[in-house]
């Protein structure tokens, strides 16, 4: 079941036009994903934390959500530092820890945590339904919008059907083991799930046709953008452009800083 714990709220970000939030999330993700300089990535993390604060999300609920990605990152930290070739900075028995490996692992960690936090603050603060409707009004192709909305609606139904099949197997004393019978049963189960999902899709389409659906998607919700949205968009644009410039030409940014703050004595 999909619970949307952050979707209800009354913060600045919750009230912001969803379309602006989607655009900001996309721009932020691309900029951070393409950045490699550590100061940039740290700035991105600070920005993400600022967004979480702006959405007034309780940190004790947000941080556990990072667990999913932290699992992957742990794996990277176990493998990358010694398997990546470069300058050796430490030795653990037969393993040489390289500077480049450590750097790469830190970059990936910072990027994924920052992007995830920003997405939680910008996108998880709206319901999936609203996300779909906003995408529809941003003229994102109908098919993509349908994919999101229908997945959201039916993932629960499909899960129920899986539970039904699984119960049916268990009440007939099926106990998974390492044998052909188990593999075959799982294959049947998954196969049956696909068959049922396909049959369900066909019936849903029929029901939609009966209600005069002809491929065009309409929504009830309307969104409005005002001064608040422009302000938010301008600030985000400024920060992200700053990051991009620093990424591409750090010297120019240093130069600007020196000009602005006076050269250090």
């Amino acid at each position, binding site marked *: 079941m999909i619970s949307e714990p952050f979707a209800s709220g009354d913060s600045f970000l919750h009230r912001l036009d969803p379309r602006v939030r989607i655009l900001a999330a996309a721009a932020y993700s691309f900029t951070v994903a393409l950045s490699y300089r550590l100061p940039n990535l740290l700035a991105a993390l600070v920005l993400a934390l600022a967004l979480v604060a702006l959405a007034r999300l309780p940190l004790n609920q947000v941080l556990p959500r990072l667990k999913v990605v932290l699992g992957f990152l742990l794996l990277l930290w176990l493998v990358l530092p010694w398997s990546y070739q470069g300058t050796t900075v430490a030795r653990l028995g037969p393993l040489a820890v390289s500077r480049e490996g450590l750097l790469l692992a830190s970059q990936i960690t910072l990027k994924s945590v920052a992007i995830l936090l920003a997405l939680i603050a910008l996108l998880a603060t709206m319901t999936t339904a609203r996300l779909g409707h906003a995408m529809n009004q941003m003229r994102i192709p109908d098919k993509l919008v349908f994919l999101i909305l229908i997945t959201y609606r039916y993932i629960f139904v499909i899960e129920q059907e899986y539970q039904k099949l699984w119960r049916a197997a268990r009440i007939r004393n099926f106990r998974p083991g390492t044998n052909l019978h188990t593999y075959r049963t799982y294959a049947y189960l998954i196969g049956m799930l696909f068959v049922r999902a396909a049959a369900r899709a066909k019936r849903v389409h029929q029901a*939609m046709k009966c209600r005069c659906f002809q491929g065009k998607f309409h929504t*009830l919700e309307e969104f409005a953008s005002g001064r608040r949205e422009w302000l938010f968009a301008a600030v985000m644009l400024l920060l992200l452009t700053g990051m991009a410039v620093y990424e591409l030409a750090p010297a120019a940014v240093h130069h600007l800083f020196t000009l602005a703050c006076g050269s250090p004595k």
Partner: protein
Amino acid sequence: MSPSQQPPLIKLEKICFAYPGRPPVLRNLDLELRPGDKIGLAAPNGSGKTTLLHIIMGLLRPSSGRLEFFGRPAAEEEDFIAVRRRVGLLFQDADDQLFSPTVLDDVAFGPLNLGKSREEAREISLRTLSFLGLEDFADRVTFKLSGGEKRLVSLATVLAMEPEVLLLDEPTAGLDQRTKKMLIDIMQNLSQAYLLISHEFDFLAATADHIYTMEEGRILLDDELYIHQHQHAHRLGKQPHKHI
């Protein structure tokens, strides 16, 4: 025009249908639904009732036979697109019918497809929901509704299109007594003609003026009455009592 002079709402002539590789389900089936008709259809599983409704909606094409709606024949997808504006079908499984995230979105889906503006669609949807006593449901999430609620909301999605004819495929399946009673009240207040499939005779008796059955791929009308005996169980049945 008096009802008898109006063309039938739905007229089926010698409809035949078979699923690939299986014996025919419908054999020369004839059916007529006239304005004001409230017809119940009771027949065993697998006798082709759902198939019949899907043929009427143009979801399946008969191998032979003729369909006519409001006096005009229908054969191609184009014809059925027009038919679906005036004939509503309530599906057997409410999960098939409710695919939008929220109840209001789902009820408004049909009116929006019919070209209504957002305001009109919202107004029609809210009016339909309140007609069914579901005013408070508008913002509920469809997959979190109970089985009975899903059924009533599905009915709202069909009624919001303001159809002239309703087809209902086992509307009472899986409903408890209370919801069933609500459904009976709703059905008795409907102005539309309808054809409904059900296995439950007490429901049919309360909502249908005629009860048809199906046999060997054809419809049998309820012309003949049979005297019959039956047994049933109810509370305090041991005590002497009378059925009225």
